[in-house]
């Protein structure tokens, strides 16, 4: 029985789940939830997920939210091997650290800086938040300086989560990684190695990017 995924393609976290499902070989029954039209607040969806977020996974009645938990679950439950999410505690810990880095430092610094303008009607960007974003980019650049992928020498769900975030960031601000060459090199490696990267990630990132760029243009 296929697994339901409630999603919107512009959402980085949703794309991370789709990239993971593809690599694990799990078929997803995609169900669009149009956040712009407030579809996540419909009673049928609230019954499934009272927190009304996407992505939301429903696997034979088992409901799961939080993209990084969903990615981990897909590998833990359906992975033919543990390459994407190694079982050895130290290797797994590095992947987990990168996932929480993405959640709490990398993407959150980006959203703290840009979302007020893109989604909440703010008319200027905050300098203090820019500093935090630069710091986060510096950290990530450092993480991918001495290794090919975010958590080691091969692709893991850390890369899938981080590239969904990074591609969103790059489409909103194409110059964002100009001072961070290692991030750019890592992104190229990901694009080349991740199956169906364009359809499952780039297209959605473009959509987000258009929304972001047009909001930013209004405040220039």
């Amino acid at each position, binding site marked *: 029985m296929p697994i339901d995924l409630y999603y919107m393609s512009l959402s980085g976290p949703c794309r991370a789940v789709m990239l993971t499902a593809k690599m694990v070989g799990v078929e997803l029954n995609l169900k669009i939830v149009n956040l712009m039209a407030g579809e996540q607040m419909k009673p049928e969806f609230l019954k499934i997920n*009272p927190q009304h977020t996407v992505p939301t996974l429903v696997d034979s009645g088992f409901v799961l939210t939080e993209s990084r*938990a969903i990615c981990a679950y897909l590998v833990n439950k359906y992975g033919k091997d543990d390459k994407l999410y190694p079982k050895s505690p130290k290797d*797994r810990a590095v992947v*987990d650290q990168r996932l929480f880095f993405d959640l*709490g*430092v990398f993407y959150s610094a980006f959203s703290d800086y840009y979302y007020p303008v893109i989604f909440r009607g703010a008319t200027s960007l905050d300098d203090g938040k820019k500093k935090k974003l630069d710091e986060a980019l510096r950290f990530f650049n450092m993480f991918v300086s001495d290794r090919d992928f975010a958590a080691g020498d091969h692709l893991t769900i850390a890369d899938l989560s981080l590239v969904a975030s990074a591609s969103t960031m790059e489409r909103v601000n194409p110059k964002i990684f100009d001072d961070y060459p290692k991030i750019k090199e890592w992104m190229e490696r990901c694009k080349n190695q991740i199956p169906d990267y364009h359809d499952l990630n780039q297209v959605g990132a473009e959509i987000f990017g258009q929304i972001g760029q047009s909001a930013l243009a209004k405040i220039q």
Partner: protein
Amino acid sequence: MPIDLYYTSLSPPCRSVMMTAYMAGVDVNLKMLNLMNRDQLKPEFLKINPQHNVPTIVDEDGFCLNESQAICMYLINRYGGHKAQHLYPEEAQQRAVIDQLLNFGSSVLFANARDLFIPVVMHGAKQLDPAALKNFHDGIGFVDIRLADSAYAAGQHLTIADIALVASISSIDAVDSRILDKYSHIQTWLKRCQKEIAHYEELNGNGAKLYGQFVKNALEKIDVAESLYTGKFDV
């Protein structure tokens, strides 16, 4: 050989690691960092953790790790054994629920409290931002909804999800217990967890009080909206 833990007791993420380590039977060598003193920016610490945040552990072989949730997961994965495996079970669905709550705890609960209080505590804001205040209560509300259906956050027994949520929620409670007044399930769950978590006062209670005092001192200097305590907002 004990694990080094760089921490500050005010910090909820640090306290989740302390509680988890104890319950996993892991010996910890506590190394306090005074963040106000910028201890975390000293070269010796930057070598261990260039991201200069706490908590940070250094295990044998010099394995360094930050991000409290990753640390708690690692401690059980590596050292849990029979004694503490139940805190982070291997079964995929059970584990996924815990992972979901650890993510939620970080990006919603902890982040919302930080976004609400930091402007007043650290940046001289003269009021609590109304949108941040609503988000703050919405986040707590989701936890309460969850606990209406189960005794613990991820099911029928204590896990590292409860430990992480306890660290944050006890800190909020210590700011002013009225904040949790409308969340009866959380109150019951908090008391249950406080009894069950070994050495609770020493590993979490005292640090939560410090957090509470720190925030309270700042709130006393401003006009605080009633909705912080009532959780009620005009629609």
